[in-house]
C-alpha cells in the first residue's frame, strides 16, 4: 500500500473578480512506504496546497488524494492517529508554554505525558519547555511544531518546510531526525525549498512546478535526468588535449583548468582512446553531473517557459 496516492489533483481558487487561480493542475503523485520523500517546488508551485488537500484542510476541485489507503475527503479520521503533520509555520498558542501546547494536543488522543517528554527531548527543548511560546525564537517554534507532529509516533509524517528558521545546528539535527525516522520504516513526506537538504536527506523526490509534477523518482534518478552531455578531462597539456579531441570530432573547450568535452558519459572510452593515441593520458576523466538545484531550476524553468 502506498502511503500517499494523488491522482489528477486539481485545485482552483476563485477570486472575487470572478477569475480563477489554478494552484494544482492535475497532479499525480505516489509515495511509497518508508523512507524520506522530498517534495520540491518553487514558491507558489502548489506544495502547501497539496499538503492541505492531503490533510482534508482544503477541498480539491477535482482528483483524489489517498493517505495510508484512505480517501482524504472521507476516510481521514480512521488513519489520522497514524499521521503527524506540520503545515506551514507551526500553529501554537503563544500564551501557553511549549509543554502546555503539546499536552493539549496529546489530550486529544489520550497520549501519555511520557510521550510529551519524549518528543520534547527529541527536538531538544527540555530547558525551555515551560516557557511561553511567545518568547520562543522562530527556530524554537519550528522545533516545537516538529515535536507536535511527532507526538502521535506517526507512521506517516508530513512536514511542510521543517527547516524554516532553524540555525545550521538545528538543520543538521532535523536532517538526522528525518533520516532516522525514514530508516525506522516510517514515511516522511517533506516539502522544502532547501535543495541541498533534500539531496542529503531524501531517498525519493518529486519536483513540482505550476501545480504539476515535473519529475519524480529516487533522488539519483532525478539527478541523472539533469546529467549533461559533458565530460571533464584533466591532463597536463590541456591545449594539446583540446586539439586532439576536436580533431577526433569531440567538441572541447578549456574551462577552469579542465577540458570540457561535449560527449555522452557512456562515450568516455572515445575520449580515452583519442588522447592515448597521442600519448596523452588524463589524470581524471569524469562525467559532469548537475546537483539537484540545477536540475530543479532546469525542470521548473522548462515548465515556466512552456506555460
Amino acid at each position: 500500500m502506498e502511503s500517499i496516492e494523488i491522482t489528477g489533483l486539481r485545485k482552483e481558487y476563485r477570486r472575487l473578480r470572478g477569475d480563477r487561480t489554478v494552484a494544482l493542475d492535475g497532479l499525480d503523485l505516489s509515495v511509497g512506504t518508508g523512507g524520506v520523500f522530498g517534495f520540491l517546488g518553487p514558491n507558489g508551485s502548489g506544495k502547501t496546497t497539496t499538503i492541505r488537500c492531503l490533510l482534508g484542510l482544503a477541498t480539491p476541485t477535482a482528483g483524489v488524494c489517498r493517505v495510508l489507503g484512505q480517501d482524504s475527503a472521507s476516510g481521514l479520521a480512521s488513519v489520522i492517529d497514524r499521521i503527524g503533520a506540520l503545515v506551514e509555520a507551526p500553529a501554537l498558542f503563544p500564551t501557553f508554554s511549549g509543554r502546555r501546547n503539546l499536552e493539549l494536543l496529546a489530550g486529544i488522543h489520550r497520549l501519555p505525558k511520557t510521550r510529551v517528554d519524549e518528543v520534547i527531548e527529541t527536538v531538544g527543548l527540555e530547558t525551555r519547555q515551560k516557557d511561553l511560546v511567545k518568547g520562543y525564537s522562530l527556530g524554537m517554534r519550528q522545533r516545537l511544531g516538529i515535536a507536535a507532529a511527532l507526538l502521535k509516533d506517526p507512521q506517516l509524517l508530513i512536514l511542510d518546510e521543517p527547516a524554516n528558521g532553524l540555525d545550521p545546528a538545528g538543520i543538521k539535527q532535523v536532517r538526522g531526525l528525518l533520516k532516522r525516522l525514514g530508516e525506522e520504516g516510517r514515511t516522511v513526506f517533506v516539502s522544502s525549498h532547501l535543495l541541498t537538504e533534500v539531496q542529503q536527506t531524501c531517498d525519493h523526490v518529486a519536483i513540482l512546478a505550476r501545480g504539476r509534477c515535473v519529475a519524480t523518482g529516487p533522488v539519483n534518478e532525478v539527478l541523472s535526468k539533469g546529467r549533461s552531455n559533458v565530460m571533464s578531462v584533466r591532463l597536463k597539456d590541456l591545449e594539446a588535449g583540446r586539439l586532439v579531441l576536436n580533431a577526433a570530432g569531440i567538441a572541447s573547450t578549456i574551462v577552469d583548468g579542465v577540458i570540457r568535452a561535449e560527449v555522452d558519459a557512456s562515450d568516455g572510452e572515445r575520449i580515452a582512446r583519442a588522447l592515448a593515441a597521442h600519448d596523452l593520458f588524463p589524470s581524471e576523466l569524469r562525467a559532469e553531473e548537475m546537483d539537484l538545484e540545477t536540475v530543479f531550476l532546469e525542470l521548473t524553468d522548462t515548465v515556466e517557459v512552456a506555460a
Partner: protein
Amino acid sequence: MKDLLRVELRRLTSRRLFRGVSFLVIIGFIVAGTITFFISNDSPQALATAQAKHRAEIAGCLADAGRDGVPSVGTEGWCERHVETSDPRFHFKDMEWPLLTLGLPLMMLAWLIGASYVGADWHHRTMMAHLTWEPRRGRVLLSKAIAVSITAFFWILALEMIFSALMWPAAFFRGSTAGLDAAWWSHYALDVARLGGLAGFAGLLGFSLALVGRNTAAALGVGFAYLAVVEGLVRGFKPSWSDWLIGDNIGQFATWDRVLGHSQTGSGLLLTAYIALAVAIAWLFFRKREVA
C-alpha cells in the same frame, strides 16, 4: 469526543483572558462587598437616626398635603408609600436587583470569552493544527461549542455565587439577613441559574459569530451593531416586533417579569431557537470552508 471536550475545556479555562477577566471581576466584587460592609450600619444610633429622619420626612410630606403633588385626601397612606425608608442596613433579601444588574455585563464578558476563544483559534491557526488531529469538523465544532456553553454557564454561576458570598458579611455582621426563607432562596437560585443559562447563550452566540467571521473583533462588532443599532431601530420604528428581539427576550427571561406578548418560558425557547440557528449557520460555514 469526550477527550476532545476535555481538551477544549482545559484550553478554555487555561486562557489568560479567561483567568484575567475572572480575577478582575472578583476584585470588583471584593471592592463592592467591602464598600457595602462599611456603608451598612446596624448600630442602634444609626437606626434611631434613620427612623427619626424618616419620621421627619413623613411629617414634611403630610405638611405638604394639597401642594407639590401630594394629595389632600388619604395623605397619610400616600406619604407612607412614597417617602423612601432610609434604612442604613444592607438587607441580603435585596440582593436580587444587584444580581440581575450584574447579569448584563457578565453576559457581555461571556460573549467576549466565547468569541475570543474561537477567534484566537483562527488568529494563531491552531484550528488547522487541531484538524490535523481530529479531521471530523462536526466533532470539532461540537466540542468547542459545548466547552464554551458549559464554561460560560458555570463561570457565571460561580461568579454570581462568589458575589453573593462576598456580600454576605455586610448583611450578616452589619446589616440584615431577615426574610431569607426557603422561597426566597429558591427564587434567588433560579435567578442565578437563568443568568448562567443566558451567559451560555451569549458565549455561544459570540462563538458562532467568530466561527463565521474567523475573527474576535468581527464577532464583537456584529454583536454591538445588532444590539445597539438594529434592535434600537426596530424598537423605534416597529415596536410590535420587539417581542422577537434578543435583548427584550433576554430582559424578560432574566427578570422573569412578563413584559412581552409571550411568556418567560417562551422567551427562553425563542432564545434557544436563535442560538440553534446561529450554531447551524456557523456549521454551514465551517463544514466546507478551507482552513489555512
